[in-house]
């Protein structure tokens, strides 16, 4: 560990300790009567206003994905990486359509997970189990991405990376992870909500400084763009193809436009199917808070676009480009860029921001996965009469188990581009779209048809992703493949298959009058606000008369 910069290292450690302190103190912040209840531990008492919700959702949405994975893809392949920008723009109008409805019906019935809603809407434990399984599975690679992000920063800092002993090498990662695990366990959702303030302050600081300062060091934006354009047009000696694209290309050059659009659309629809984004939403105090956030959150997208451009800055800076090439790891582009451009104390602030920016969402995601398991697997199938305190305890333990699962994804899957971890999660979570988004608007779909469609989408998506090969890896190398002559995000092709099967089988099952299941929700509950609650649902209400 001879090449560790003392100043950078000290600042990262100090900021990390501050955040840890905040994490533990968070247990007392705005606390209700008892912490040992899932509404408290898992939803922060369901009392967050616009301001806190904005930070909480921002903490969910802008993660190591933003700071490490997206710039890495931009650095390696050019304009295709900007699908992430298009996605974070598109996501807000899309969820504007369905998220307020989900908030309302969940508030009326006390749902805290997407699977709760599925169960209530379709009266199907099997479908709810499928939703819970998908949520937990899809979160693991997403949490793994956060780990890879932290690891990238630690590598560039020189911590542990010089050791050949794999345990010593990963030791800082384990320590960071342990701290995260413990304060999540103690404070629940309050910890990441409070830390999100610290995190966002750090992030805005270093991103704005970087965006205005680094281009002055690299000969201005025009030089950065010109260098990138020339770089991606040059032909790789290995593949005999251009290194990347400077703007998405049309059909004649092997279209990346279609791929770009399908990646953006798929990611946008997927985002608010993830249990952790739904958790962040359900923690809001009233319906208008959810809507207002759909209007303010695009401000975060602006930040993402600027961060994506760090990938081009890394291309335009010869020292950074050489460092990344030497290590053969595109994930190191942003950390190397900062290290080369900033004085060591400021590099420390930026690195701490990235690390904390990965820990916050990892905490939120593991809480969401834990809530899912407890609500929809444990109390549903294992111990139905579990007390609230027991449920909370189970969730706390599961949040640890999920993190270990994520560690496996981080170790096992190739990280040529860590963004594929998130896209893999997206392929799976998108398979909930027909039952969840569909279910918010119509009770037309038959539960068994939805289950069959889901299974087909999951199997097709997983096999297709497994079969994507690259010159360096034979499996799991990417998230897009070619269907009917177009390169398309596998998540989109899988969910189309899912939907077709769900529609076709619904016709069949309705024709043979298969039992439809009980719907405990009522039409007006999808537009209810906090004033209309509590309005206990009448017991034994049949299928939605409006559908």
């Amino acid at each position: 560990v001879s090449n560790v910069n003392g100043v950078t290292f000290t600042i990262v450690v100090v900021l990390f300790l501050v955040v840890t302190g905040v994490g533990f103190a968070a247990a007392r912040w705005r606390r209700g009567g008892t912490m040992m209840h899932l509404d408290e531990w898992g939803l922060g008492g369901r009392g967050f206003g616009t301001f806190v919700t904005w930070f909480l959702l921002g903490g969910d949405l802008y993660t190591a994905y933003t700071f490490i994975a997206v710039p890495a893809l931009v650095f390696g392949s050019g304009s295709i990486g900007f699908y992430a920008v298009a996605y974070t723009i598109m996501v807000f109008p899309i969820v504007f359509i369905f998220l307020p409805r989900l908030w309302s019906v969940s508030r009326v019935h006390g749902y805290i997970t997407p699977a709760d809603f599925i169960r209530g809407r379709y009266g199907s434990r099997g479908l709810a189990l499928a939703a819970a399984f998908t949520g937990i599975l899809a979160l693991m690679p997403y949490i793994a991405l956060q780990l890879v992000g932290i690891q990238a920063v630690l590598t560039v800092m020189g911590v542990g990376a010089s050791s050949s002993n794999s345990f010593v090498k990963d030791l800082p990662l384990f320590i960071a992870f342990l701290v995260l695990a413990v304060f999540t366990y103690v404070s629940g959702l309050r910890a990441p909500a409070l830390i999100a303030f610290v995190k966002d302050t750090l992030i805005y600081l270093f991103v704005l400084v970087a965006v205005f300062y680094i281009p002055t060091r690299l000969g201005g934006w025009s030089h950065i763009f010109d260098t990138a354009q020339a770089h991606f047009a040059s032909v790789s000696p290995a593949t005999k193809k251009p290194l990347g694209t400077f703007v998405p290309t049309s059909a004649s050059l092997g279209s990346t436009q279609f791929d770009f659009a399908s990646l953006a659309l798929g990611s946008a629809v997927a985002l608010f199917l993830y249990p952790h984004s739904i958790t962040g939403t359900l923690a809001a105090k009233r319906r208008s808070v959810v809507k207002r956030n759909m209007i303010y959150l695009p401000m975060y997208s602006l930040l993402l676009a600027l961060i994506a451009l760090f990938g081009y800055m890394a291309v335009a800076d010869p020292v950074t480009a050489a460092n990344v090439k030497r290590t053969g790891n595109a994930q190191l582009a942003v950390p190397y860029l900062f290290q080369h451009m900033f004085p060591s104390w400021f590099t420390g602030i930026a690195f701490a921001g990235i690390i904390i920016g990965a820990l916050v969402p990892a905490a939120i995601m593991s809480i969401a996965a834990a809530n899912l398991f407890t609500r929809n697997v444990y109390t549903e199938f294992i111990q139905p009469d579990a007390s609230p305190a027991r449920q909370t305890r189970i969730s706390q333990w599961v949040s640890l188990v999920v993190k270990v699962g994520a560690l496996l994804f981080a170790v096992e899957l190739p990280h040529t581009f860590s963004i594929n971890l998130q896209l893999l999660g997206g392929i799976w979570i998108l398979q909930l779209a027909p039952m969840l988004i569909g279910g918010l608007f119509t009770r037309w779909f038959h539960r068994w048809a939805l289950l069959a469609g889901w299974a087909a989408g999951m199997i097709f998506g997983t096999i297709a992703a497994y079969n994507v090969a690259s010159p360096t890896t034979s499996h799991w190398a990417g998230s897009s493949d070619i269907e009917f002559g177009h390169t398309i995000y596998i998540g989109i092709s899988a969910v189309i298959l899912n939907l077709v099967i769900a529609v076709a089988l619904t016709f069949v099952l309705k024709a043979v009058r298969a039992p439809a299941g009980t719907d405990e929700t009522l039409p007006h509950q999808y537009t209810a606000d906090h004033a209309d609650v509590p309005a206990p649902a009448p017991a034994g209400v049949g299928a939605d008369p409006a559908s």
Partner: protein
Amino acid sequence: MTQASTRSRSAIAAHPVISAVIAILVAVSILLPLITPIYARTGPRLGDFPFFYWYLLIVMPVISLLLWVAAQLQKRITSEDVQ
């Protein structure tokens, strides 16, 4: 059927024009970033930024504004019905 359900149902029926405007605002907000061929080009530049890059930056506040208008309209048609 409760009072609340007739309220939300009638909001669309009672204000077909405003409801249609809301739908269009949301649809346009999705299509602006989705239709890649609109902006997959390098020129014209704005300052030093090629078209593809400044389009993505400009479209964000535009969508924020469109959604804000949509939310205001929605508030108007639902709160009127409460009275």
